[in-house]
C-alpha cells in the first residue's frame, strides 16, 4: 500500500487505481519471467517482448535504449518503480518529459549529444529504396546531414558560435529541444519510440 502511494506521487500522471493496475501487470510479468531476478524485476528480453506486444515497437536499437532509460539504476532489470515511472512518461508525459525521453533514446552512448554516427546508426535502415548508381550508404549519410542542418540550424543564426559547431556534427539537448518546439513532428525524428495514438 505504501508502495502504491509513493508511486502515485512520483509518477504524477496516473491516479491510484491506474498505478494499481500497472503494478499488477508488473507482477504478472515478473512471474512469467524465468530469471534470477525473480520477485524483483524482469530483464531486457521480457521488456522488449512486452513493449512489442503492447505498443507494436519493433526497432531493436530503440528498444535497447528504452530499456536502459527505464533501468535507472542500471542493474540490468526493471523494478516496479522503474516500470511505473517509465510508463508515466511514455503514456502521459508532458512535452518536456517526452523531449528528454526521446533525446535520451537517441543519445546512444549517453554522452549528452546525438552525434552523426549515432544518427547514422538509427537511420541506416530507413531508406528502403536506394538509387542504383549510388553507394549504398550515401543516401543515409545525406539524410543525416539534412537532419543535422535542420535541427542544429538554430546555431547558424547565432554568429559568434560560427560554423564550427556544425562541423562538430552533433546535437545537444538544447538543439533538440528548440527544434522540437519549432516543429513538433521532430519529436521522434530518428525513429518511433513513443506509443502510437492508434
Amino acid at each position: 500500500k505504501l508502495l502504491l502511494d509513493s508511486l502515485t506521487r512520483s509518477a504524477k500522471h496516473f491516479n491510484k487505481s491506474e498505478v494499481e493496475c500497472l503494478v499488477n501487470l508488473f507482477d504478472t510479468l515478473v512471474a512469467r519471467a524465468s530469471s534470477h531476478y525473480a520477485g524483483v524485476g524482469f530483464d531486457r528480453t521480457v521488456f522488449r517482448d512486452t513493449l512489442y506486444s503492447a505498443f507494436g515497437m519493433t526497432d531493436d536499437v530503440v528498444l535497447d535504449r528504452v530499456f536502459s532509460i527505464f533501468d535507472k539504476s542500471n542493474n540490468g532489470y526493471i523494478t516496479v518503480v522503474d516500470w511505473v515511472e517509465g510508463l508515466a512518461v511514455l503514456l502521459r508525459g508532458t512535452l518536456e518529459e517526452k523531449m528528454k525521453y526521446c533525446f535520451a533514446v537517441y543519445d546512444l552512448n549517453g554522452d549528452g549529444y546525438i552525434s552523426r554516427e549515432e544518427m547514422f546508426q538509427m537511420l541506416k535502415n530507413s531508406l528502403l529504396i536506394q538509387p542504383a548508381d549510388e553507394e549504398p550508404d550515401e543516401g543515409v549519410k545525406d539524410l543525416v546531414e539534412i537532419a543535422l542542418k535542420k535541427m542544429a540550424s538554430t546555431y547558424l543564426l547565432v554568429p559568434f558560435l560560427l560554423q564550427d559547431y556544425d562541423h562538430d556534427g552533433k546535437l545537444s539537448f538544447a538543439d533538440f529541444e528548440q527544434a522540437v518546439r519549432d516543429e513538433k513532428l521532430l519529436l521522434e525524428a530518428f525513429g518511433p519510440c513513443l506509443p502510437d495514438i492508434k
Partner: protein
Amino acid sequence: IFSKASSSPEDVGESSSETEEDEQPVRYQEGSTELSAEYWGIQKLTKYVKGGDPTATVIALCSMRDLNLSQEACQLAIKDTGCLEVLINLLDTEEIKCQTGSLKILKEISQNILIRHAIADLGGLEIMVKILDSPDTDLKCLAAETIANVARFKRARKTVRQHGGIKRLVELLESISVGSSCQDEDTEIARCGALALWSCSKSPKNRKAIRKAGGIPLLARWLGCSHADILIPIVGTLQECASEPSYRLAIRTEGMIENLVKNLSSEHEELQMHCASAIFKCAEDEEIRDLVRKHEGLQPLSDLLDNSENKQLLAAVTGAIWKCAISRENVLKFQEYKTIETLVTLLTDQPEEVLINVIGALGECCQEQENRGTIRRCGGIAPLVKLLTATNRALLVNVNKAVGGCAMEPENMAIIDSLDGVRLLWSLLRNPNPDVQASAAWALCPCVENAKNSGEMVRSFVGGLELIVNLLKSNDKEVLTSVCAAIANIAKDQENLAVMTDHGVVPLLSKLANTNNNELRRHLAEAIAHCCMWGSNRVAFGEAKAVAPLARYLKAKDPLVHRATALALYQLSEDPNNCVIMHENEVVKLLLAMVGSTDDTLQEAAAGCIANIRRLALATEKAKYG
C-alpha cells in the same frame, strides 16, 4: 486594385460571382530555362520521401519546409519535380506524422493558383475531406485550412461538396458549446472549419449544403464569440451566404443582426468590413433594415465613413448604408447623424466600388425632401451630374437615380440644367444596357416636370423625342414602364406631344396595352391619358384597339392603376366610338364602384367618364326613337 486582406480570397461585392480563377490558369514562363536551385533541392528531398520509411519521410518533409515555400519558383519546383504527387500520396497513408508533414507543405503552397489546380487535378481534395474524419485534431485543422486554400475555384468547391466535405466541415464547428470563454483548442478547430466553409460558400449549391447540414445555428453560436480570429471567417461565411433569402431569414430569426452590429465597433478593420458587408447583403429585407436600426447599427455605420483610407472597408460600409437607406425611418436617422453631408464629400476621388454605393445611398436619401436640399448645399449636384458621363453600368444606374431624386426640387433642377444634366440623361437613353436606359428615363420624369421652360428644353435635344418614342419598341419591361412615365410628362407640352404623335407614339403605346404588369399598366394609362390631348389621338387610340385592354385594367387590385386608367378612359371617352367600346366592356359598372373613392382625381375622372358614356347612350336612344 485593393490590397487583399489576410484571409479573404475574394473582394467585397457580388457573393455569387465566380472569378477568373475558374478558367485553367496560364503559366507564365520565365526567361531562363535553367532549373533553379530550388528544383534540385526539392528533387533530392522528394527522393527521400519516396524511398524512405516514415522516419526518413518526416525528416525530409521538415527540411522541405525550410525552403522558401511562399516563393513561386519553389512552389513550381514542387509541381515540376513530381513532388506534389508524392505529397498527395502521403495523405492517403495512415501515417499521421507523414500526413501532417505533407499537409503543412500543401497548406503553404496551395496559395499558388497553379498548385491549387494541380492539387485538385491529382485528387487531393477527396483525400483531404477523408482526413477530416481523423481523430487527430492538428491533422483535421491542417486539412481544413488547406481545403480553404484550394477551394478558391469553382471546380474545387464542387469536388468538396460531392465528396461529403461540407457536412464534415460543418461538424468541425460543433466542437464545443460556446460559453463566454472559448477554449483555445476548440476555437482552433472551428476556426479552420470556418475558413474552409468560407471558401466553399462562394458556390450557391454549397451554401444550400451548409444550410442542410445544420450549419446556420452553429454559425450563429460562434458569432457570439469574441475572438476576432474565428469571427472573421464566420462573418465572412455569413456574408457570402447572405445573398440567399433562406439565410437572411435565419439571420433575422437567430438574432444575428445584434452581433453583426456589435462587431462593427471591433478594433479589427477586416472584421468590421465583413460585418458591414453582411449587412449590405442582408438589408435587402425590410425586416433586417428595421433590426439594424433597432440594434443601433446605423450610427456605427455612419461613423465608419470617417475611415476613408481602407477602401475595402469603405465600400462595404457605404454599401450597407445604401441598402439601409431604402427604409425611410433609417433615412431620418442618417439625417440626424449628418451622414448625407459625409457621403457628399465621398463623391470625389474614390474608387468605383465606393462611388457606386455612395451614390446609391444618396439616391435613396433623396426620398426625404430635406436631403435633396442638403445635397445641394454641400455642393453635391455638380459631381453627380459629372458622373453622368461614366461608363460603368452599375454606377450609371445609381447616378441616374440620384440625379432624378435631386431633380424633384426646382432649385436643384436649375443647377442640373445649367450643367447640361438633362441632355446627358437623355443621351443615356441611347446606352445599350436596359437598366441604364430605364433609370435614365425614370430620372427624366422629375426633370421634365421641374425644369424651367421644360418644353423648349426637350425640343432642343436633337432627335430626342424620336429617340424616346422608339424606346417603346424595347423588350424590357422596366424600360417600357419608365419610358411611358417620361412620355406622360413630356406630353404635357402640346408642341412636344405633336412631335411625338408624328413619330408614332399612339400605335406604339397601344401595342403595349395588353399587359398584366400593374406598374406598366399604370404608367401606360397615364401616358395614354396625356397623349389624348392632341388632334385626333383619341380616335387613333380607339382605332389602334387600346380601349378594350384598358377597360380590363379596372379589374386590377391596384388603386394607382385604377386612377391612371380612369384618367385615360375619361380622356378617351370624349370620342363616341370609344364610348361604345367602353360600354361593351362594362366600364360603367366598374367605374361606378370608384365614384365613391377618397381619391379626388379618381373620383372626378370616373364620374366624367361615366357621364360621357351616358350622354352618348342617351343621344343614341334619342336618335333611335326620334
